[in-house]
C-alpha cells in the first residue's frame, strides 16, 4: 500500500473511534463543548479517555490531569524520535507537536525512507485530527440526545475503550503481569482512598517492573 492509503485507512478507523470518546465524555457529564475541546486541544486518545474516566470515577481534576499527563509522556518520546526526520522549526514545530500521537508516529516509522516517513507523519496526523474531531462531535451530540447513559451501555463503553487501547500493548509476559497487578492494586485501594488515587498509584508498579531488564 502507498503511504497515502496507509494514512487514510488509519485516519478513518481511528477517527471513527472518536465517537466513542464523545459519547463517553457526555455520559460522564462533560458538556459537548468540553468533549470537543479535549479532542481539539488535548488530542491523544488514551489521555482523553483518562480525563473522562478519572472524573467519572469520582476523582479530582488534579488526579485527572496527572493520570492523563502520565499517559501522554510517550508522545514526548515520539517527538524525540521524529524531530530529526521531520526537520522542524517555528510554526511547523508547533503543528507537528500537536499531531504527534501513536498513529502518526506508527505510520511514519513503518516507512522505508525519510521522504515517505515525513509524508506518513503529516498525512496520518492531519487525517486522524480531522476525523477524530468530527466523530467526537457526532458522538457527543448523539449521547446528549439519548439520556440515561446506563440504559444505552455507555457506562461500559469507557472501560471497553480502555481495554481496546490496552490490548495491543499486552505483547509480553511482563506486561500481562503488570496489568494483573495494576487491576488488583487499584481495586484493593478503592474502598480506602479518595477516588482517582488508586489509578495513579499504579504508576509505581510500572516503575518497579520496568526498573530491571
Amino acid at each position, binding site marked *: 500500500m502507498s503511504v497515502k492509503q496507509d494514512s487514510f485507512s488509519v485516519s478513518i478507523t481511528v477517527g471513527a473511534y472518536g465517537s466513542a470518546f464523545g459519547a463517553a465524555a457526555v455520559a460522564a457529564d462533560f458538556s459537548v463543548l*468540553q468533549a470537543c475541546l479535549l479532542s481539539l486541544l*488535548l488530542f491523544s486518545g488514551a489521555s482523553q479517555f483518562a480525563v473522562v474516566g478519572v472524573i467519572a*470515577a469520582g476523582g479530582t*481534576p488534579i488526579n485527572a490531569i496527572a493520570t492523563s499527563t502520565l499517559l501522554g509522556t510517550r508522545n514526548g518520546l515520539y517527538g524525540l*524520535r521524529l524531530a530529526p526526520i521531520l526537520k522542524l522549526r517555528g510554526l511547523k514545530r508547533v503543528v507537528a507537536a500537536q499531531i504527534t500521537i501513536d498513529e502518526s508516529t506508527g505510520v511514519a516509522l513503518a516507512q522505508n525512507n525519510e521522504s515517505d516517513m515525513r509524508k506518513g507523519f503529516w498525512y496520518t496526523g492531519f487525517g486522524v485530527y480531522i476525523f477524530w474531531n468530527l466523530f467526537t462531535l457526532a458522538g457527543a451530540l448523539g449521547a446528549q440526545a439519548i439520556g440515561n447513559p446506563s440504559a444505552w451501555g455507555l457506562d461500559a463503553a469507557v472501560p471497553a475503550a480502555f481495554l481496546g487501547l490496552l490490548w495491543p500493548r499486552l505483547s509480553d509476559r511482563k506486561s500481562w503481569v503488570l496489568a494483573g497487578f*495494576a*487491576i488488583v492494586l487499584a481495586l484493593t485501594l478503592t474502598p480506602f482512598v479518595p477516588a482517582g488515587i488508586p*489509578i495513579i498509584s499504579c504508576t509505581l508498579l510500572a516503575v518497579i517492573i520496568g526498573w530491571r531488564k
Partner: protein
Amino acid sequence: MSAFWVAVIGSSALAFAIKFIGASVPETYLSNPRILRINTLIPVALLSALIAVNTFANKTQLALDNRALGMAAAVVLLIAKAPFPVVVLGAAVTSALAYRYI
C-alpha cells in the same frame, strides 16, 4: 471554574507541553533504556487500573453490575480479533441489555 473545566484545560495544556518539549530537545536526552522501558509500561499500568475502576467501582465502593458483563463481551470480541469500534459497541449493547433485564 468547575472541576470539568480545570480538568479539560489543565490536561490539554500539559499534553501539548509534553509533545512540544519532545519535538524540541535533542534526542540524546531521555533515551536511556530504563526510562524507555518504564515509559512503555506506564500506559499498561494506568489503562489496567482505569479498566478495573471503571468496571468494578462506583466512586469509592466496589460494585459488580451490568458493566462487568459488557466487559466480558469486550474480552470475547478482542480474542475473536474484532475491530475496535465493534468491541466498544459490543460492550455497550451487552451492558445495556444487562442493565435492562437483570
